[in-house]
């Protein structure tokens, strides 16, 4: 079977879905291929823009300021590249970079309003939401269900971590201890932190409960009332003003549930940032898919881009394979948003790394060829450290228009644009920049692709 489109997006995580939505909203005929899992759905569902500058130990209080610094110090960072387009005056580089990022983040927030993953926060200041470990992290936007209100500022706030019997992904007592110690060191509220466990039994068994089961269960009528009933005594006993839940408050009704629980208990209720399987990550993934299809984009799930046809410096078509069929799609431009190792955009063995669809040669975080590196040599001895694992900064090198380049710095094709974690030069885990880079690069890659398509048609 053969198809035609203006734009083909390969990859259905944050980067690909944003790129696709922008193009579809522009009226382009857009097809998006998604092979399988995406890091986006594993994420905590909060949108990091920049939390730490590379190799710095103090968190950045404002993403905007962080980007000013980043664009001067790291011109090759995926946030920075657009500033170095020869069409931009040299005095405007930094401003362009900051403005573009802000534009993309503002766009994202506006578009996710009314979906299952509505966002809050802004580009001017980072927030410090609490995680299921009881730690905090700097991030730019959180889902509204994660809004902890004034728990960290109100002098008399009393926080209760709420666990669920038989749900091992969250242990309220260790989270409470860890968080309280952090607050004491910081000499800020809340000064009283407790923990309690409630029973939520989707299948009548108090063990082996999963996040998905719990979130689905709480989407049903009447379940929040039950929960509120169980919580009442605990709240009274400690005078709790705020309740922290693992991120399972619902899939479709999470925000409604939060509000309802707040009304019923007279407290501020919020979700912590959690680990995969992450319900907020899945909500974000679904919300992005919703806005893409609503904009008129076509999504082919379970389709893997496996080969391509290229004439001179133009990619003509892509072939996608699904369990029972193979299709060829002709298009004017292509966005490669296949992610890194989890998404599957970059793969490697003991002989080196390679990009998986076009067989492009990835580079390391400092832009040396990664085609023949032994992965273990691109790692740090320390497992978890501010330096991170250099192997996680490997990916494609792109030009200011987000086109992957050869080792001579010239674009590999005029109409192939890359976005998201497939790009090299940043380590999202330590910078806290994952979904922000994906969103911004997806946004810019789409703009450039649109421009190219308009030129040729």
């Amino acid at each position, binding site marked *: 079977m053969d198809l035609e489109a203006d734009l083909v997006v390969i990859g259905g995580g944050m980067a690909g879905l944003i790129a696709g939505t922008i193009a579809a909203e522009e009226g382009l005929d857009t097809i998006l291929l998604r092979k399988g899992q995406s*890091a986006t759905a*594993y*994420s*905590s569902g909060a949108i*990091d823009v920049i939390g*730490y500058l590379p190799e710095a*130990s103090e968190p950045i209080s404002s993403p905007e300021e962080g980007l000013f610094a980043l664009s001067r110090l790291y011109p090759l960072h995926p946030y920075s590249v657009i500033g170095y387009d020869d069409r931009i005056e040299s005095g405007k580089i930094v401003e362009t970079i900051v403005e573009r990022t802000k534009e993309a983040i503002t766009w994202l927030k506006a578009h996710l309003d009314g979906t299952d993953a509505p966002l809050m926060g802004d580009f001017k200041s980072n927030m410090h939401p609490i*995680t299921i*470990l*009881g*730690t905090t*992290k700097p991030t730019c936007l959180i889902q509204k269900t994660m809004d902890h209100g004034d728990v960290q500022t109100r002098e008399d706030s009393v926080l209760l971590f709420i666990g669920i*019997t*038989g*749900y*091992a*992904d969250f*242990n309220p*007592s*260790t989270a409470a*201890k*860890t*968080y*309280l*110690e*952090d607050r004491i060191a910081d000499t800020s509220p809340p000064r009283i932190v407790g923990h309690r466990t409630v029973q939520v039994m989707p299948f009548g*068994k*108090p*063990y*082996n*409960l999963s996040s998905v089961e719990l979130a689905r269960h709480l989407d049903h009528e009447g379940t929040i009332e039950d929960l509120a009933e169980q919580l009442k005594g605990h709240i009274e006993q400690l005078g709790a003003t705020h309740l922290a839940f693992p991120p399972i408050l619902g899939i479709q009704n999470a925000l409604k549930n939060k509000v309802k629980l707040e009304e019923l208990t007279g407290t501020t209720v919020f979700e912590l*940032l959690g*680990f*995969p399987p992450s319900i907020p990550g899945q909500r974000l993934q679904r919300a992005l898919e919703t806005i893409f299809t609503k904009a008129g984009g076509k999504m082919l799930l379970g389709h893997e881009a496996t080969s391509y046809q290229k004439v001179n410096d133009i990619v003509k078509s892509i072939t996608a394979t699904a369990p029972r069929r193979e299709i060829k799609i002709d298009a004017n431009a292509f966005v490669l948003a296949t992610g*890194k*190792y*989890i998404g*599957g955009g970059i*793969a*490697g*063995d*003991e002989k080196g790394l390679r990009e998986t669809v076009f067989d492009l040669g990835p580079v390391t975080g400092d832009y040396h060829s990664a085609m023949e590196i*032994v*992965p*273990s040599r691109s*790692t740090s*001895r*320390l*497992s*978890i*450290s501010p330096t*991170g*694992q250099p*192997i*996680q900064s490997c990916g494609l090198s792109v030009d200011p228009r987000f086109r992957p380049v050869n080792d001579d710095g010239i674009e590999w094709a005029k109409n192939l644009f890359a976005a998201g974690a497939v790009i090299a030069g940043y380590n*999202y*885990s*330590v910078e*806290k920049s*994952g979904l922000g880079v994906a969103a911004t690069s997806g946004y810019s890659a789409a703009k450039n692709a649109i421009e190219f398509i308009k030129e040729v048609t």
Partner: protein
Amino acid sequence: MTKSKFDVVVIGGGSTGTAVARDCAMRGLQTLLLERDDIASATVGTCAGMISSGLKYRDEPDMMKICSKEVVYWNHIARHIIAKNPILAPLLDLSDAASDSSYMESYSEHVEERDVPAMMFLTPDASIEIEPMLHPEIIASVYYEEYFIDPFRLCLLQALDARNHGAEIRTYCEVIDFEINDKQEIEGVIFYNRVSGATERVETKLVVNAAGPWAHKVAKSAKDYLPIRLNKGAHVIFDRRIVNIGITVKAMDGRWIYLFPHENTTLLGTTALDTWENPDTLVASFDEIEYLLQSMETVLPSIREARIIRTMTGVRPLVPDWKVPERNVTRGYRIIDHSENDGKKGLISFLGGKLVTCRHMAEAVTDLVCEKLGKDIACSTHEKPLPGNEDDVDIIALSKEYDISLHALERMRARRGTEMVKVLELTKEHPEWKTTICTCEPIIEAEIRLSIREEFPQTLNDLRRRLRLGTGPCQGTFCTYKAASILSDELGLAGDDFLVDILDFRAERWKGIRQSMRGEQLAQEELAQGMYACVGNLDQSDVDYDVKPWEEGF
């Protein structure tokens, strides 16, 4: 609180030290075991767990006889932690078969007592039917059977049994000095308690130095001397049982290497390199990994497609034979009575030995200890079973009774035998503890709680040794923080200690993951970084984390 006077202090909680402590305690001696880290934290924890017939040592007929006998004893006292593995040695050309033929007879001499068939040749078709991944051009293969034991559980059960017989077992206690009188007699042992930070001392009549590859260092701190030959061995570990049967083959340098299904994983090993490094810092090198893969590729061409999850490295404390390759060094052991060479009186050291012979070694040294103490008590370690070996376990009935999956119960049985009922009893009062914490293995919460209460772990890494926590394909990515919470609850740890436990365990897993990282492990590591750094923000944590020996330098 530790008593202050002992008949014997055993240094080292590996297979040798725990066996010695058990034997001494069973013979009624006042026994203290001091281990600087955890039980089975060093060499024994990196071995393949083969309690072999001694096939590789056929030039040492006495060794073969001892090994065979020990296999019989192990099957009597510890059958719940033992599995029989069939093995094929595929032959690619006739020279393979001709080069040594004596092994068939040597192996077959003791087959009856071990309850295995005699060694036999299989046709290529029969071999490939058993293991379809074998090279299609093999000309024949040799079939035989060996037994394997869980080395961690073995050491732990020996330690627990020693404790049941009155011994004191102290982990995280490092021997740093000795009290020696004018007559050059050892009177006391001084050790550093790594948990409390205190230095402690005890009086003792005798010291058994079972410190494995550190035995010479212990001797040195007694101002004595012990020559030793240290030899590094590495394994590559695969995510599951990738072969139906164990495979052995000759590597490019003529050494035998093997691929053994082991618990839920498969071990490819091993290398042998003389070493002078601190054993704590050693990791597998790229060369060792390639040596093993390329050698196994000759008979299993698709081995590289299998998922490698980590490497594992240990140091053999060999007898110091010079001018011979490692494989010709005796696998027998020596007991050095330092008083006989004008050394310190009361100090007895081990050299050499194997996991399979640890009980035998312990018997020999305890005989000597008893003789020195003027006691005449017979050894019974080969007769009395280790805890859990008392009876058969009906997994199917237990699964119905407690509503826990058969698979989880079977894995629990392989660790605990009849003692597993203690775990299951906990779930009566706490049904929520039926929750699976480590899904790879799998392990339920009740077993983790029981282990913390009764098996004296201090860290997640100690739990790994007791339960195989975090040893599967995800290498603890998902269970680290869950198990850390339980440990923290049970031990009443502070929040910072909880975070340190997570960092420690990630560090320990990373030690082995890093060297062989490729394929799916790249995505696995992105996930781990995403969880613990990106979301948990632990890379920026200011807790007091002690850098591990293998993390120092760049």
